[in-house]
Structure formats: structure tokens, C-alpha cells
């Protein structure tokens, strides 16, 4: 067809968007009423399974923002097998993550050798006071049940474990 002047075509685009929005609804999500579920791998908040943690300090050391604070002490734990000698176990006193400093890079979750830290896509934990963003180990434990199952991988992925 004849070259429609750009000015008119521009009007056409905005008009058709308006018709689409009225008929098919807008692209925006009305947040407080409808909520968009983040994908399973979204890095919302870090959850801690306390009994896996042996306070080996690897996560605190490899955190670039220095926002993980751990204190632990040594304890004697009952022997695994009957009659064995009591084991020395590291008991965790304090495991805080300061989410005001954290930049959600995920190095701690990845570097933890005992799989004690997990990502959960939970994102609605904003606080009135910034100090409340320092989650202690009980709060981190609560996030555990919001941790989803690992999503199965794309077709061509290598199934037998990564490394």
C-alpha cells in the first residue's frame, strides 16, 4: 500500500495498543491483589538448615560483602555407634545474615560443603527498621519450608551430576 506517513502509523500503533489493553487486559499485575510467582530459582532469601551446618566459616570467609556472622563452640556429642567414643561436634551459637548488606550473589550457598544454605524465592520480607534485616538463625530456619524442589533441567542437560 502507499507509504503511510510515519506520523499516521505512529497514531495507529498507540490506538491499537489502547484497544488491546481494553479488550485483552493490561500487562501490569495489580500487586497487592494479584501476585506474580517468582521462578523457582529466584534468589529471594537464604534459608539455613541448622543441623547440616558445622560452622566451618567457609561461607563467612567467601562472602564479598562480609555480611555473614557466625559464632560456634565445641561440644561432645553422643557417639554414633553404641560404645564408640563421644564425638567432638561444632555447635552453632550465632548464624546471622545481614540482608541490608547482602547483594544476593549466592557465593555462600554455592561454597557451603555441607549443603546447609539454600535459596528460597520468598521476597516479601521488607522491614520498617533496617536493623531488623539482620536475620538470626531461627528466622533463617523458618525460611527452610519456602525452599522449592530443584527444577528438573532442560532436555540436553548432563544428568549424572555436574562435577
Amino acid at each position, binding site marked *: 500500500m502507499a507509504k503511510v506517513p510515519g506520523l499516521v502509523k505512529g*497514531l495507529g*500503533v*498507540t*490506538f491499537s495498543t*489502547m484497544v488491546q489493553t481494553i479488550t485483552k487486559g*493490561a*500487562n*501490569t499485575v*495489580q500487586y497487592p491483589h494479584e501476585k506474580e510467582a517468582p521462578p523457582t530459582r529466584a534468589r529471594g532469601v537464604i534459608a539455613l538448615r541448622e543441623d547440616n551446618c558445622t560452622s566451618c566459616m567457609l561461607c563467612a570467609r567467601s562472602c564479598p560483602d562480609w555480611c555473614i556472622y557466625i559464632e560456634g563452640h565445641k561440644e561432645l556429642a553422643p557417639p554414633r555407634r553404641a560404645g564408640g567414643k563421644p564425638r567432638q561436634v561444632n555447635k552453632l551459637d550465632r548464624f546471622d545474615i545481614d540482608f541490608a548488606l547482602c547483594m544476593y550473589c549466592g557465593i555462600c550457598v554455592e561454597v557451603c560443603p555441607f549443603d546447609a544454605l539454600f535459596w528460597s524465592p520468598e521476597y516479601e520480607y521488607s522491614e520498617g527498621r533496617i536493623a531488623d534485616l539482620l536475620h538470626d538463625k531461627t528466622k533463617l530456619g523458618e525460611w527452610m519450608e519456602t525452599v522449592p524442589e530443584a527444577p528438573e533441567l532442560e532436555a540436553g542437560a548432563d544428568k549424572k551430576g555436574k562435577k
Partner: protein
Amino acid sequence: MTSALWAVEIPYWGQTLLRVLGGVVAVLLPAGTIVYVFLFKMMSFMQSRLGPMEAGPYGSLQLVAEVGKWLQKEDIAPERADRFIFRLAPIVVLASTFLLVAVVPFGPDAWFTNFETGIYYAMAVSSVSVLGILMAGWASANKYSLLGGLRAAGQLIAYELPMVLAVIGVVIQAESMNLQQIVVAQNAGSIFGWDGLGNPYLLTQFVGFLIFMIAVQAELTQAPFDMPIAESELVSGYMTEYSGFRFLMFFIGEFATAGVFALIASVLFLGGWGVPFAWFGWNGIDDVDNWMNVVGPLVMFGKMMLLVFLIMWVRFSYPRFREDQLQRFAWKFLIPVSLGNIVLTAVAKVVW
């Protein structure tokens, strides 16, 4: 409003009070609906979003919230600003809108004033807002608003000329400058004998209509011509330093002027408050019966919303002219074309 309407004698001061109240309603009501329907809703739909939905059902009370917000905001004047002129500027801009609406007829008897030289008065008064904008730009001691004010001065003057020339075409065809006469001429007339649709000047004066709408777009400093409020360069031009109630006056001024110009455009080109007289067998203004005084404003409101839709549609889709292109477009293109339109109308007038 003549006092015979309610068969009760209204003293003269009562009439002027009614006229003032009517004027305020006639300006603020269109401004409010335009802001809600177009700025909040239509703009959002064009951008695939829903616009304000929280305040009231479908965001209808959003304007109340906005006005409330602005009223309780502190009204700051910059320290080195020229205080008196700084405060006067928004009043001048808003005053020009109220003066403009005084001349618009809303029905056979429903008009504020019935000047013989109605349109001449309207064009003169509409240039008062240029003074207000220049005062705002100059008085707020801020480089951005100075630039905005000067650009506005250049632009508004450059676009008043084509607007006036476009109106002359209509005046020639209606043989009168009285707006009531123009409305009657359009609705009572006929196109080559067929008077099913009256003779809206939109058809015969289409070039004049286009030039008038482009000039109105420039008068309102809307999108293709919003150099004075170039938010990506001058933050918000001459309105940068205003806040609180004064900014509200500018904001209302902007949209009320859009409404009033649309009212005038609908009077000039779409037949104003009247529906084609042939439909009801009237053939002059005196035998138009009384219910038209009620239906007239509604018809005017409808036509005004249609024209403001055009203005806003263009505003939300186009980027901005640079001001030298804008001036060149006005002086080198619009004015010659509008002069040509006048010549054509005059020749056509003589021939028919």
C-alpha cells in the same frame, strides 16, 4: 442565563453570581473529566497498563487524591525569585481560561455573554496566558525556567497567528463574529440543498480545522510542541519552581485551557451546542424550543471530549520538535497555508 427561565425575578447581582458559578463549573468540570479520562486512563491504556485503580472504583477518586496532595504541599518560592510576579503568574494563566469560557454559547439561551464580536474577543484573551507563562519563567530565578519561559513566549506568539487566520475562514463563511450566529449558521445551513446534516464547517473548512487544531496543540504546549515544558531537558520548564497550590493552578490551567479550546473548536467547526435544525423542523434560533438549553451543554460536552481525545492522542504519540524547527514550521508552513485557505473561502463565498 436570562432570568425568565424560572419565572422568578433574580436581581442583577444574582444573575452575575449565577454566571460566575456557571463559569467556574464550565471550566473545572471539563478539566476534571479530561484529566481523569485522558491523562489517567487513556494514556495508561495506550501504554498497556491500567492506570490508577486504587483510589475509588477504577481510580475515579484519583483526582481528589491529587488535588488533596497538592493542597497540603508547602508552597515554596525560590529565595531570589521576584516574589510578587512569582505569585501572580499562575493567576494570570488561569484568568485567561475563565475569560475565554465567558464567550462560549452552551444553548439557545444558555450563554454567559453574547458579544457581537465573540470570536475576536476569544482570540485576544487567549494570548493573555503567554504573559502568565513568561512571568512564571522570568520570576522564578532558575535557568531552566528562564529557558522554558522564553521558549514559550516565542512559540505561543508564533502559533497565535495561524490560529487567528484559521478562524477568519470560519468567520467569512458564517458572515458573523458572534459565536451564537456561527452555531446557528452551521446547523441551519445545508450542503448543496441536502440539509440532513446541517453544514458543519469541519467539512468545508477542513484545512482551517487542521491548522486550528495544530495551533491549539501549540498553545497548550502539548507534545509535538512541548518545548517550554521539555521534561527531558528543562525538567519542567517554567513550572519547575512551583509547588503546592500554585502548581495545582498551573495544572488545572493546562487542562482547563485544553477543555475550553476544544469547546471553541467544536463551536467553530462541529456546530457547537446545536444538532442539525432540520431534524426538528426548526429553521431559526427563535423557534428552537426550551429543552435544547439542557441538551445543548451535553452535546457541547460530547463534542469537546471528541476533540480533546484528538489532542491527547497526538500528545501521547509524538516526540518533540526542536524550537527552531517549530518556528520554521509555523512561519513558513502554517501561516501561508492558512492565508491560502482564507482566499479560497472568500472566492467560494463570492461564487455561491
